[in-house]
């Protein structure tokens, strides 16, 4: 059974139905959450059928000729990393839909928003399952269309500016990648399946050709990830887009960048990756510190969380480009953990915004006494973001640092400062929001309702479970990471 194709087709079809069939609009929320829960159930079935002992191998492979003239195939398949990210996507989409339950009074707008969310989900799953560089590229770029509309049509005052900024950044990156994609075709074996990653792995390039190709891909992924200095679109989008959009964007879609680095940059261009690693590690460390310092200075909580992500993505990239088993394993684990913790953090900010219509830290204060459950939940989510031991981000971070240290001592030590800074921006924010005297306007704040608890608590549970028993995730990530490390170090031995 072509289960991956079904996983891609289902949200696309249901999303398009929601967009074009007016009769569905009145029931848009129910329809969308139903569709996304079905998707989640299918993903659970996928996980059940996945052979964990072979997590490093591509499973559920489907290869069909698509455009043989240019060597493109409809080729899908997942290893443990792709599987984890698909699980993350399928988990977050229903949560995001539920979190935004009360938004949009008008049914047509609601249908439009949810339809676009479902269509985006289809692209996400497709990207994480793609085993063909051309297919990956097509989905990578086409995904911009629903995202652009999600950012541009729904959200705050500056949303159109943010949408254009997002689009221009992404397009420039994507189109540079296109040149590399076409050039890769001429370097590869050609033929009907010229773009299959398995046919392209292990090619040897003329050093400079390989480096240029690597850079073509890397620039696109660095923009997506986002890495300093091409990160500036993210805070703009985070502050103007709707919280659900931002959550999807940061928690899942940005992972496309790091996923691309792992599965395309490292495996296709191992020599060039080694060549570029010192520069990239420097960039990553700059990201860690810059993102953290910038987060400390933010008053807008969406921007704050966005900058913390820039910092955390720096750590992920550091782990990836340290090329060590533990560091890459940690980085992949961090991709999942970060999705959970930052997703939860954004949703919490969204709940605060829904209550008071503002996300300015200054406007809040003393909420702990009024809304203890909200405060407690916020604290736990915040602590996960600063990598409290026992939660999955901690396990991920420590693996990144332990793994990266032998490869890049100074960089790792400097990056660890990011953890200290994280304590600062999270705890300071918590202090300003929830402690001290309660302003008059805050006294009647409502606590988290059942729906909101159901939205955030599963994420916390997931983080705790994965934090206490990281093996649950690492079983899926070890094998693929080992494969990547083998490819990179094999190249070094030549």
């Amino acid at each position, binding site marked *: 059974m072509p289960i991956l194709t079904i996983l891609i087709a289902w949200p696309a079809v249901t999303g398009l139905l929601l967009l074009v069939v007016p009769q569905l609009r009145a029931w848009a929320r129910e329809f969308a959450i139903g569709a996304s829960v079905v998707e989640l159930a299918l993903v659970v079935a996928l996980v059940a059928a996945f052979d964990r002992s072979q997590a490093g191998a591509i499973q559920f492979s489907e290869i069909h000729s698509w455009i043989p003239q240019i060597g493109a195939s409809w080729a899908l398949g997942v290893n443990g990393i792709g599987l984890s990210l698909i699980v993350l996507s399928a988990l977050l989409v229903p949560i995001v839909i539920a979190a935004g339950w009360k938004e949009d009074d008008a049914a047509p707008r609601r249908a439009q928003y949810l339809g676009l969310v479902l269509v985006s989900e289809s692209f996400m799953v497709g990207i994480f399952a793609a085993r063909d560089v051309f297919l990956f590229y097509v989905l990578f770029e086409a995904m911009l269309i629903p995202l652009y509309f999600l950012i541009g049509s729904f959200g705050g005052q500056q949303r159109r500016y943010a949408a254009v900024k997002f*689009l*221009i950044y992404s397009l420039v990156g994507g189109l540079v990648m296109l040149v590399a994609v076409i*050039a890769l075709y001429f370097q590869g074996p050609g033929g009907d399946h010229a773009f299959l990653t398995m046919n392209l792995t292990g090619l040897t390039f003329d050093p400079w050709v390989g480096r240029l190709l690597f850079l073509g891909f890397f620039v696109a992924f660095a923009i997506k990830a986002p890495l300093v200095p091409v990160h500036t679109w993210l805070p703009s989008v985070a502050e103007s887009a709707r919280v659900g959009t931002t959550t999807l964007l940061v928690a899942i879609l940005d992972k496309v960048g790091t996923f691309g680095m792992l599965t395309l940059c490292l495996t296709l261009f191992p020599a060039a990756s080694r060549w570029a690693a010192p520069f990239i590690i420097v960039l990553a460390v700059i990201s860690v510190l810059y993102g953290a310092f910038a987060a400390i200075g933010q008053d807008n909580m969406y921007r704050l969380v966005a900058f913390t992500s820039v910092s955390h993505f720096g750590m992920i990239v550091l782990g990836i480009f340290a090329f060590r088993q533990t560091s890459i394993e940690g980085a992949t684990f961090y991709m999942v953990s970060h999705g959970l913790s930052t997703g939860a953090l954004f949703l919490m900010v969204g709940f605060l915004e829904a209550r008071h219509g503002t996300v300015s830290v200054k406007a809040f204060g003393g909420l702990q006494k009024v809304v203890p459950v909200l405060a407690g939940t916020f604290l736990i989510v915040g602590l996960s973001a600063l990598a409290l031991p026992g939660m999955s981000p901690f396990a991920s971070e420590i693996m990144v640092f332990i793994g990266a240290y032998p490869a890049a001592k100074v960089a790792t030590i400097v990056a660890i400062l990011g953890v200290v800074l994280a304590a600062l921006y999270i705890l300071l924010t918590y202090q300003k929001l929830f402690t001290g005297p309660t302003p008059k306007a805050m006294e009647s704040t409502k606590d988290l309702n059942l729906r909101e608890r159901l939205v955030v608590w599963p994420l916390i549970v997931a983080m705790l479970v994965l934090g206490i028993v990281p093996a649950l995730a690492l079983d899926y990530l070890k094998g693929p990471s080992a494969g990547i490390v083998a490819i990179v170090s094999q190249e070094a031995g030549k």
Partner: protein
Amino acid sequence: MTYPAPDIAWASLTPILIVLGAAALGVLLEAFVRVPAARRIYQFQLSIIAVVAALLAVVWRWVALQGDGVVVLKSMIMLDRQALAWQFLILIFALGGVLLFADKGREGEDAFTPLGSVAPGSAEETVARAKGMYLTEAFPLVLFATGGMMLFATVNDLLFLFVALELFSLPLYILVALSRRRRLLSQEASLKYFLLGAFSSAIFLFGVALLYGATGKTGMYELGGVLATYMPQRSVLILLGVFMVVVGLLFKIGAVPFHFWVPDAYQGAPSPVTAFMAAATKAAAVAALARLSYLVLFRLAWELNWIIWTVAIASMVFGTVLAIVQTDVKRMLAYSSIAHAGFILVAFAGFSPSALSALPFYMATYGLATLGAFAVITQVREVTPDGAIGAEATRLGQWAGLGKRSPLLAVSMMIFLLSFAGIPLTAGFIGKFVAFRAAIEAGAWPLVLVAVLASAAAAFFYIRLAVLMFFTDAPTDVAPHVVIRSTTLGRGVAIAMAIAVIVLGVFPSWALELAHSAGVLLAPAIGG
């Protein structure tokens, strides 16, 4: 001295003969059918039948073609698959064009002035309008233009090429001037187009004369043979001649710096004419340039490449930058077409053999989207102070909120814009992909890099229009209001093109296969 009768393979000429014959018949209809409304219907039917019959004839020739092609008229005309592919494309564009020509709203008005010869705003014009007269000459004119373009895409002789050039240009000069609304703008556009066109024709002819002077040949195949052994010492005439011939063709493609007519002609012409002209003229000119390149110019690759590179970069950059600052939809598309001329030249750079199959595909994707976009434009209208439907609403601001009022048209338009921008899952992406692939194959990757950056910048103004249509609410207080003049034909063309753009974007395999087999020139000079 005796002149032996030339041996002509008439069957291969059937498509062209059908179109030109129908055009001549159309002129007779003008003379003998006296009732304007009936004349309009006959003309329309005749044109449609002619174009469809010619399309079928092209398909018949394609199927019947043995080997690489047929020599029709010595070295003058050779019908190979490349030529047939271009003829097919031009006929498809003509079909769309004719349908838009015939598009008539409930108010009974088409895009053309009832009487081209009277002064704008004169009493005669009012009378003609009141009498419900139609300018039915448009149909034979477009058939003549189509026939000329089909010939243009086929000819292997520079002198004959000039004849075909004039054959398709002259009707277009007239058609551009015939807009029903904003007639002064239309006439001015026509005058500019005519003067610059005449200028470029003259340069082209001068170039042909120089080449003949230097080599004694006008046939492309023979010229290629001469250039194979060409000596740099006697090359000034040849280089100058080739340069001037290329300039003449670049003019028709609308590449910078020969683009000055494009924005004015696009804006001033009636939209159906713009649609036809934008798609078909470019296709015909690209076809001729392709033929010339692979028979003659590749011998001079070293001398010519810098020109192609310069013109390509200039077209992409100027077209994109100037399109960003446009406030008129038609002018914006005009500058975008200049940028697209640059992308086309990128495919030529390096004379890679795969450009011959990339170009027909690229032009198919571009032409279909262009036809569709102008079909949408014809339907977005202003409301005149007395409440009637007026001219096209081409100011960008007037398109605000279109997505709410006419989702179908707005979504179609967005598909065309995404295709122009080269976003995946639309035809434009595959078109760009194959064009860029041809360029990279020939080592022109810096050019491709410029092209993709230009594409990224261009996305800005395509998307801006999408933003206006979908994210912005229509202003309610500003006059004049905008209405959607919904007509079956216009809407049908737009939707058909949108579907075609998506199909070619998602399942391009079959079309690429056809384009691949079209990438064959009969002349054995290729690769020599």
